[in-house]
């Protein structure tokens, strides 16, 4: 039997499943790990759901928790115990995942993979259209710091592309 809180949680998860997908995709290369991370994020979201303050945007709240769990997951130094049996059902199922992704987006994901866990979070928030104020509130750094870092990341990407172009000439 589903309680009203569970129904609301499920509906919010359905509406924001893309955040879950993008965070998991950016922090885990391996699809098995991705599903495991998605489940850990869901567990933490549900555990914190009772304390969710309606005055805050759900996406802001979800980003904070999802990114915190993802960075901790990424940091775990031990060999992980898989909760997902290969071939079993997955929490997030992407249909024609690669076909639906352009070459540029593939490259973007590759570049994100190379970043440290904090800059990964920053880039995801930037690409998802969060403004500096929201990004600063999620990450816990100042707005000017967000602006400076984004500027620096743009420059890093530009240089990387220059190197790639020069290398292929």
């Amino acid at each position: 039997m589903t309680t009203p809180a569970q129904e609301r949680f499920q509906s919010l998860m359905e509406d924001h499943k893309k955040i879950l997908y993008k965070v998991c995709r950016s922090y885990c290369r391996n699809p098995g790990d991705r599903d495991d991370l998605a489940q850990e994020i869901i567990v933490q979201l549900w555990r914190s759901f009772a304390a969710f303050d309606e005055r805050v945007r759900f996406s802001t709240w979800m980003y904070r928790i999802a990114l915190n769990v993802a960075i901790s997951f990424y940091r775990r130094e031990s060999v992980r115990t898989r909760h997902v049996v290969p071939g079993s059902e997955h929490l997030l199922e992407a249909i024609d995942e690669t076909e639906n992704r352009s070459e540029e987006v593939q490259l973007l994901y590759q570049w994100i993979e190379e970043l440290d866990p904090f800059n990964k979070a920053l880039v995801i928030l930037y690409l998802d259209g969060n403004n500096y104020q929201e990004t600063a509130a999620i990450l816990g750094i100042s707005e000017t710091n967000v602006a400076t870092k984004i500027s620096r990341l743009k420059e890093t990407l530009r240089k990387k592309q220059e190197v790639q172009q020069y290398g292929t000439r």
Partner: protein
Amino acid sequence: MELDELKEKWVEHDRKLDQSIRLNLQLLRETYTRRAKFALWRLAAMLAAGSIFMLVVIVSLGRFIALNWSTPRFTLPAIVLDLAAIAALAALTAQIGLALTIDYNQPVALIQKRLETLRKFRIRYTQAIILTMTLTWAPIFIVVMKGSLGLDVYRLFGIPWIVINVAFGLAVLAVGIWAFQKYGGRVNQRFLRDIAGYNLNAASRFLTTLAEFEKDYSPQERSSIREYSPEE
């Protein structure tokens, strides 16, 4: 291609995701009901098992001290062990208390700093336990033999034997640290990497990365960065 141009591609990708990803609702329900409960149970079980074990050790040692109060050669090693057990219980309780109070709905930099500090605390705790066990195995042997079998190790083996064992314990510790530092990097087991100090170094590096990320740039630094990106 500029990051802003890629952002447009990302928005397109985001739109496509609406159609291409599906959330398995049944698995979602199972995850947040069953696994959330399991995670809490696991933490509670760890707290209970660790604390009960330490409490049993502390109480048993207290009883041993009371029974052998008139013979300092037995009470002194027991007092040393009891103090170590009390310190271990306090550290264990502090770790679990910290872990339980971490609220993931806090800014990323704040939570990651707390989590990494907790990780460093846990690694130091593991190292301290191993060090204490190695250095105090002679007192443990004296107390266990007397407490469980009523045997006096001092009389059975003599003081030189105890001194040799303490020296042997120190030698094992030194060789162990050397071996862990030389070969520990090749192993994946968290416990071994904790003892060897690899995970402690990794935690320190992570905190340095975080500090760098949190660092507010000076106006000069900011302007030099902006020179590269005139559209900012």
